């Protein structure tokens, strides 16, 4: 997948194949691809907790953890990431695609 002239190895859904190569530039470019022009402080708070949880447990955090850690309301999270916490936020945070109906 190419965004702004940079090449990324991703799965069919556009999730990073190697989550360890993730950095802030990847997040910015992936977000742009989804139509999020600028990552705000709130976006970063969500991305950082997802990243931290994944590094510690190997899993994406529950939405409850995201809300309670960041103090951002549930409905606002869906506005910040229109594709939702999985295809939106987790993808921008460089995680592999979660299993299930997402």
């Amino acid at each position, binding site marked *: 997948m190419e965004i702004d002239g940079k090449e990324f190895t991703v*799965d*069919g*859904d*556009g*999730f990073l194949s190697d989550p360890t190569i993730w950095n802030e530039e990847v997040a910015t470019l992936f977000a742009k691809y*989804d*139509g999020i022009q600028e990552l705000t402080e709130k976006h970063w708070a969500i991305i950082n907790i997802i990243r931290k949880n994944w590094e510690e447990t190997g*899993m*994406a955090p*529950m*939405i*409850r953890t995201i*809300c*309670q850690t960041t103090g951002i309301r*549930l*409905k606002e999270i869906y506005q910040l990431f*229109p*594709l*939702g*916490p*999985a*295809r939106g936020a987790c993808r921008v945070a460089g995680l592999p*695609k*979660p*299993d*299930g*109906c*997402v």
Partner: protein
Amino acid sequence: MNNFEEKKNKALKVLSEHEDSKLLTHLNSCVHCGLCAESCMYYLTSNDERYIPAKKVDLVASIYQRYCTFTGKYFPFLGKARELDEAAAEEMTDLLYGACTLCGRCTKHCSIGVDIGFVIKKGRQMLTEMGYTPASLQSTVNAAINSGNNMSIPESELRDTLTWLEEDLRDEVNDPDASIPLNVPNADILYTLNPREPKFFPLSISAMAKIFYAAKESWSLSTQMYDVTNYAYFTSSKSEAVTIAERLYNETVNLNAKRCVLAECGHGSRAFRWEAPNYLQKQFPFETITSVELMAEYISKGRIKLDKSINKEVVTLHDPCNLVREGGVIEPQRYVLKNAASEFVEMTPHGIDNFCCGGGGGQLAMSEYNERRMKTAEIKAEQIRKTGAKVVVTPCHNCVDQLMQIDNKFKLGVQVKTLAEIVADAIILD
């Protein structure tokens, strides 16, 4: 015997060992009239003849002819008999997994009633026996088998989430005693969840909890087995489908619930309500219904009161294939919407002739075919756009996700909601 020969023999057993003549009938009846072509969204959005449903049936039928008929065994060159080699297995995987949502629209349009979906599922079963199931789909089945839910949510995380939602519910209904009951025996209802609800999209849990509260229902969730999905239905792995269905059956019996109510989930409803008695070979001692029918029941019996003027925006409805075309739950969601929204408009076509969202049949989970999935979505995007609606309601969490992606990709500017969410918003509490 080499490795592929072993796999092949397993796959061929799917064709040769069957309880009745159903498979034979459906493999031998296609007259190639071509009506199915125009019913398939893969064909309609690509014009690629390989995607015509009859051709997919032919794939399985030609292998059946080669190995299970006299002519095929001794004079394979006479008919359309085909060897099951690696190329055939790969082609089957590409077309039966990668180019079919098991939506059943072709079956409904078939001039002589070939159950095309049934044949495709048999083909998928052969591929599963051979280890050709797409990895991303098998991963979701494995998560369910190994952890008890298809997103591997630990029990403590589920409990914390439900406690958090319970606090919200108390604020919402202004009652400190409102609750989300867990593992309560002898309740009238054991309710289920799609794991994506507690994990990422809990608004529908809050909505159902509010509806149960308003209806003064005796209900419970189970922390042991609450997963309404059964992805082994998509892979046609009978043993895994049985394992998953049996867990929900056992938990409903253990908690002695009168009814098992299935959350808004198309394939989950089909797998548990309509397939599971066959999987488990027994009659269920409890009633199984969908939450869609339950909401309609609450409204018709006056157990909940709605003010539809609260939902002002124009609403349209997407019919999940497994619930509507396959399951026959057609009117309850319409009855609910007419009572819960100010203005409800239908898509064209709708009901049993509706087009799939593109995410069914396990497609949403299969990253391998993402591009094709979003190509088929052009049809649904256009259907939605033509309604002029601002809200798309669908009683299936899988469809919700696909519709959210459609909204994003085709810039429709709509909100996607479950039926429970729109009902909960319109509730008037006593």
